[in-house]
């Protein structure tokens, strides 16, 4: 809070106490620097401004206008009318807003730079030359040089799609309204629809509650099974550890969807498990069929463990090798049994290091699309709106947005999922030792 106040004061200081060169920079980017004789830097700022002006005149302003209207002319290929593509306009509009923000940041940095130079001159110093400024980027400001490309990449490949998805949630994109038809802004009506549609809410609540149970159970199962396996294979009495560790790694190495299709076949009526059951004279079991609600859920948990446990095992194996042997020895001398040693030494030690991994596992499981899509996709169950009783929110989202083309509703559900997972992850993380005792080395 204090930091923010100081920053605001700093900005107002610049505008209130800036000299004529600072004001020149306020009027035209780079002008103040040129007046201080910083030709290179001044030209660079001017070049950025010229580039921005060129971009905005050429298309930036039109893109921003397009972001507001999402198009006014519908395409008609038969009549040779090119028309507007609302989705592209939305994307380009977001890009132009990002460009405008970048320009604003450059502008503020230009004013700040001019103000800092003014202060140097007031103290009797000399404005830094372009070469000296550049050197800074290899020295004090090296972090900026290094982070520039990754941040650019994150903006383009992460932030832009996320903003795009968020924006889609506020449009009517989907159903019959797909390009070349024009998409329009609809405000928060998709959220209202999600909350008020009579068919929607019961299904949403049912799927959400199963989704939370699934995420908690599968994360706990994978984590403790992985840790247990690592502890087991860490025992001195186990012979041929490398060989035993290789088996789970093999399961991990096989692409997930192939494993899932393999399991689907194994549990199908014609699969080997039912062959054995019928071979013993028993009736075939519908492990994944329309009535198999809890059996299918259990199979999903176990198959997910098959895929995920090896990665936890490998992680835990690495961590266990750093365990303080003397601590374990002392505990043993003090009379702690194996479970007490695990409960009070091993588990806190592993948990401390793996809380972020645990959270990512939780989010991954919460949004685990593949498991039930491959094991039991293509079913709608009575009492569920276009979903089955094993579907997670992400599967339902797929049914609605891809199967049924309701992209805007899909984006709305995505946002809800995002809020839920963020809240859960943040509350777990901020309450964990990993966060509270961040600086502690164990």
């Amino acid at each position, binding site marked *: 809070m204090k930091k923010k106040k100081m920053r605001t004061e700093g900005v107002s200081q610049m505008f209130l106490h800036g000299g004529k060169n600072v004001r*020149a920079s306020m009027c*035209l980017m780079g*002008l103040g620097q*040129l*007046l201080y*004789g910083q*030709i290179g830097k*001044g*030209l660079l700022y*001017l070049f950025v*401004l*010229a580039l921005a*002006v*060129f971009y905005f*005149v*050429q298309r930036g302003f039109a893109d921003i206008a397009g972001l507001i209207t999402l198009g006014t*002319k519908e*395409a*008609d*290929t*038969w*009549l040779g*009318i090119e*028309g507007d593509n609302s989705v592209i306009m939305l994307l380009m509009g977001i890009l132009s807003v990002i460009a405008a923000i970048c320009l604003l940041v450059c502008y503020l940095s230009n004013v700040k730079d001019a103000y800092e130079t003014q202060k140097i001159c007031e103290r009797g110093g000399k404005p830094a030359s372009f070469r000296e400024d550049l050197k800074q980027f290899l020295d004090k400001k090296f972090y900026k040089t290094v982070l520039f490309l990754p941040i650019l990449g994150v903006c383009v490949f992460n932030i832009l799609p996320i903003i795009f998805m968020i924006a889609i949630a506020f449009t*009517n994109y*989907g159903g*019959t*309204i*797909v*390009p*070349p*038809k024009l998409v329009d802004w609809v405000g928060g*009506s998709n959220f209202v629809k999600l909350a008020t*549609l009579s*068919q*929607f809410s019961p299904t949403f609540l049912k799927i959400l509650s199963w989704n939370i149970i699934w995420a908690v159970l599968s994360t706990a199962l994978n984590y403790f099974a992985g840790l247990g396996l690592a502890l087991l294979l860490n025992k001195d009495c186990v012979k041929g550890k490398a060989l035993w560790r290789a088996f789970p790694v093999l399961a991990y190495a096989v692409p997930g969807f192939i494993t899932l299709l393999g399991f689907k076949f194994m549990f*199908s*009526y*014609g699969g080997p498990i*039912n062959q054995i059951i019928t071979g013993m004279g028993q*009736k*075939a079991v*519908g492990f*994944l*069929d*329309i009535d198999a609600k809890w059996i299918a859920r259990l199979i999903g948990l176990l198959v997910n463990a098959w895929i995920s446990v090896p990665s936890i095992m490998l992680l835990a194996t690495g961590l266990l090798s750093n365990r303080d042997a003397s601590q374990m020895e002392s505990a043993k001398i003090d009379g702690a049994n194996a479970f007490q040693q695990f409960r009070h030494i091993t588990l806190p030690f592993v948990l401390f290091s793996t809380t972020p991994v645990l959270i990512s596992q939780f989010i991954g499981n919460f949004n685990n699309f593949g498991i039930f899509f491959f094991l039991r996709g*293509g*079913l*709608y*169950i*009575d009492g569920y*709106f*276009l979903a089955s009783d094993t579907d997670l929110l992400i599967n339902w989202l797929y*049914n609605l947005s891809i*199967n*049924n*083309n*309701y992209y*805007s*509703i899909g984006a709305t559900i995505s946002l809800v999922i995002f809020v839920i997972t963020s809240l859960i992850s943040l509350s777990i993380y901020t309450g964990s030792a990993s966060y509270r005792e961040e600086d502690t080395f164990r």
Partner: protein
Amino acid sequence: MRKKGYRLLAGLLCIGLLSGCGGNAGGNDGKGSGGNSAGTDTQNAQTGDGAAADLSNIYTGELERNVTIRVLENDTAIEQGYFQELIDAFNEAYAEYGIVAVDANMDQYSNLADDGPYGYGPDVLYQANDVLMKYVDGKHIYPIPVQNLECYAQIPDRAWEAYRREIDGTTYYMAVPVNVQTSMLYYRKDLLPENWETEWDDNGNGIPDMVESWSAMYRFSKLRMEEKEGQYGYMRSMYDVYFSSSFLFSYGGYVFGNNNTDPSDLGFSAGDSWMGASVLLQQASLMNEGCIDDTITVNAYSKLADGTYFATMTTPDVYTLFLKELILAYQGQGMSEEEARALAEENLVMTKVPMLPASADLTEENPELIPLKTMGGVNGYGISAYTKAPNACLAFVEFATSYDMIMRRCELLGIAPARSDVASQRGGTSEMIYQSLEEGNVVLMPSITEVDQIWTPAQSFFSDLAKDAFREPGERKYDDPDKLKAGLTQVDTQIYDAIFTLSGN
């Protein structure tokens, strides 16, 4: 002096920048006028909205020269070498214009609506009617002046119907039919009872009763099951909407109303369609649990070959897969490849599907029979609205649908042609399917976008129905007509919800 110089330089640069802005501002004016012209375009578009598109705007009649057209064909045609023959012949015929047809090299199920607007789609597409007609709403494909094509008179109206669409009062044809796809019955002649000619041919027409009527098939299936455990008669995975919905259509069910064009009128529960569901339930009772999921679909080839199954129903394009498995089975019995092939070709029979009892009671003696109306599709060639050479594309479509090329397609791929002259020349299955289409016993898949929403709800119902045959008597969900009707009504509701609940965006 130096300071003055900097000021001068700064001043000059500012002027330059501002004049640049001015220049750009001029550019902006230009764009503004573009904006005006765009406004005029909008006006044109608005006035043009009600007007019918004039096809002479698209097809000028003058072939584009030195162009390459990308053709999307189905994988089987490419693998069997037919497509290469087709483009070689076309390229030779149109060499003087410099028109070259090439493989679009895309997935056969690629979506033109996604790729076309960005210039990635093919120029000519060979796809099923439900896929091609999805592109009409967004005008992603061009209408075709089919009346001018040589094949027009040879293709029956029912096949053209699959590609007909009325827009703003004008009727357009969106593609040219090439082949008809529908269900066929596959059975093993050598698994027929030895006395079939005396005991299983009531009408004495030389065709076994079990492949003429579902009632006889039911009796025969029961007999085979009683004869030996683990041996079955007719087998089919019930969840498959393409095959199972045929039984509903035969008793008055349909997909969409108004000749499959009105998605607000769902008809899975229409008429006495529950009787079709009842037939499926009776059939499932003589199968194993494999009919609930895709087990039978997957193992039908090997199980028919090893004699576990007597018959199954599927599309004609997989004949070679059944044949291959049967040859292998015979070879396993010690025959040479030649002997095995000859015997397999003799014993593996693909024929039209049996008829249904009007009462839907498969146990009825001497029932009145009605035809099974199978779901089908018509594959054809369409022209992308994003092509730069519509005239060359039209020439390609005309060439590919000519008598010679369709005949060659039949020879190499064993398809059932939409052209009557080729069908009658080829005879056999081709003619049989053509006749079924003509007689109205092939219900074409709807050619509207909403057809995408029918599969999962219907598939869920058919799975549940098949499962019912294996539930304990007290737990059965579909043990009376009312429950069957309720189940089918639920399918209609789910499809309606999928289409309309969120469409009021």
